């Protein structure tokens, strides 16, 4: 990697954030992480992020779609990866993909190694 890429990981499940953080650090990324949408939007306002990995459904009123919109506003061109473990989230998945997310990944991940490599390849 010529220049260290910045990735922002957001999920309300802290351990999932920790696991992805470990992986992306090993892959050479500078990792920013949050467990809530509102502070994640603050990060997007301050930092030029290359890649956002974000849970679609999150508590406290800020959803993945809100983070995507903030990403498009403050970091145009940033690749956005949406994740969800909800079975009934077809509508929100369709909607977030239509709004401009690059990839959707279903939880649980079939294989962590493959998933993280696929995400990393978006900014390779």
């Amino acid at each position, binding site marked *: 990697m010529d220049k260290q890429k910045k990735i922002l990981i957001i999920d309300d499940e802290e351990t999932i954030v920790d696991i992805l953080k470990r992986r992306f650090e090993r892959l050479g990324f500078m990792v920013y992480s949050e467990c809530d949408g509102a502070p994640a939007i603050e990060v997007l306002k301050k930092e030029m992020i290359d890649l956002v990995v974000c849970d679609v459904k999150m*508590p406290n009123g800020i959803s993945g779609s809100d983070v995507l919109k903030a990403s498009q506003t403050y970091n145009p061109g940033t690749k956005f990866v949406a994740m969800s473990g*909800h079975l009934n989230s077809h509508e929100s998945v369709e909607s977030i993909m239509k709004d401009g997310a690059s990839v959707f990944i279903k*939880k649980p991940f079939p294989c962590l190694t493959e998933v993280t490599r696929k995400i990393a390849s978006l900014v390779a």
Partner: protein
Amino acid sequence: MLRNQTYLHNLKDLAYEPGEDKLQESSHENDFIFEKTSDDQIEQLIQQNHCLQQALEEADDKLKETQAQLAQAGKLATLGTLGAEVAHELNNPLTVVSAEADEIIEALGNGNFDREFAAISAKNIKKYAERMRVIIDHIGRYSRDDKNSAWERVNINRPINDSLILLKSQLADSGISIELTLNENLPAMWGHTNKLESIFQNLLTNAADAFGCIKDGRTKKLLISSSLENTNRILVKIKDNAGGMSKEIKSNIFESFFTTKAAGKGTGLGLAIVQNLVKEHRGIIHVDSQEGRGTEFTLNFPLERRITHIEK
């Protein structure tokens, strides 16, 4: 004897109806008494009374059976609507378990096995497997037929907390913040854990649904409290600041099959079941609602089974 005669005269006066001829007084003292009932007639009346009592008991048994079936049907319906939430509740810990296992497998495969990292992964696997066990155990207990579980001494906080196991994520995802004010020193009441949990499951699901049509950006709050009243009653309040309801809707909410939810969303059984289950606990349910401002359900249970009135 004289007093008896006066009494019987009065009875005769009572038997007089306008438009009827006055009862004729007999010259015989005993004829003042209404027609003498024979032993056979008394026996017949006793038998009729016995038959009526039996029929009443049978009807009561059938009613109880129907209520139990209704409660079970409603509970399964609630579980059905909760299916997607249950899957989500299991998917998150499953993501951790699967990903941490991948971490260990990869470290073993490429020879970079770090004991410290492996220990973190293993602990997470154990922790999240336990979380899945609690959820699955909870669903098992909740869906079980109530006939097989018993009445016992229950701390009301337990079914309140248990009902939140499946619902807290749904509530949080809908942007609803929960404020729990549970009195930790409550004495145990006589109750049925599963039935009490059904009550809270239904009331909380209703509150979550009530927030569904709120689009004005207000902070969505659900307050749940438990407290002791007059040393012998347990009070539980569930208050939301959603849209409330009109007087007309409020007067019908405990009717079976009454629903304001969209087709396929509500069974119309939830609050009817809640009311039945509260009655089974000799409790009282009260609803206070202001249109546009919110609804508060107050549940009042006696600590003991036999108390049927509220002592003021």
